[in-house]
């Protein structure tokens, strides 16, 4: 299993541009999450999904959108990039029956908005 994979690894955006951060997991996990991590800080939950077709807002959803058309994929969309969205983005997944802490994280996408 590849686990949780994220693309791209790094991206530079201009203010106002849009992009989609891709996340895929091959563990058949029903729960998936998007976090952002600002320099020297902890992770903040952006959006999460408890299964295909179901998504919900986390702590910091403004400026982002998600979709969950399949169990495997959970893309994160930035429509109008702003400098405040410069961060490292982590996708994670977990299996409902597992302990809640067993979230498997991807390697992250580093985003710079100029």
């Amino acid at each position, binding site marked *: 299993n590849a686990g949780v994979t994220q693309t791209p690894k790094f991206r530079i955006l201009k203010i106002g541009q849009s992009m989609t951060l891709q996340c895929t997991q091959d563990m058949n996990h029903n729960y998936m*999450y998007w976090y952002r991590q600002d320099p020297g800080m902890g992770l903040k939950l952006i959006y*999460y999904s408890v299964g295909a077709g179901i998504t919900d807002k986390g702590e910091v959803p403004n400026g982002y959108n998600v979709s969950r058309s399949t169990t495997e994929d959970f893309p994160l969309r930035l429509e109008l990039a702003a400098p405040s969205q410069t961060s490292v983005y982590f996708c994670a997944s977990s299996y409902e029956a597992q302990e809640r*802490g067993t*979230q498997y*994280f991807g*390697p992250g996408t580093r985003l710079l908005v100029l």
Partner: protein
Amino acid sequence: GESVGLHLPTLSVQEGDNSIINCAYSNSASDYFIWYKQESGKGPQFIIDIRSNMDKRQGQRVTVLLNKTVKHLSLQIAATQPGDSAVYFCAENGPRGGAAGNKLTFGGGTRVLVKP
């Protein structure tokens, strides 16, 4: 809002010594706590967890202590090794099935530097 925070942003430890990382939480309804390790350039990795009905849990070279009276969580690493150099995060979660669902609230992180 509810928050989880850490007392020390950086901890320097001599190789072979024990490390203690502290964390304070504010949500008295939280019933599940986790410690994650994040190495440079990588995503967080689960270390150990503890439920609120316990006050201590041990893993391989790691021990988590929970003091619900003062809402304090700590991670002890025995015989710290160079490979333990990383940022450590505590996280908390509310009761399963409640509004918090599977959502975790992370603290700000403590960097552990192991000196040879």
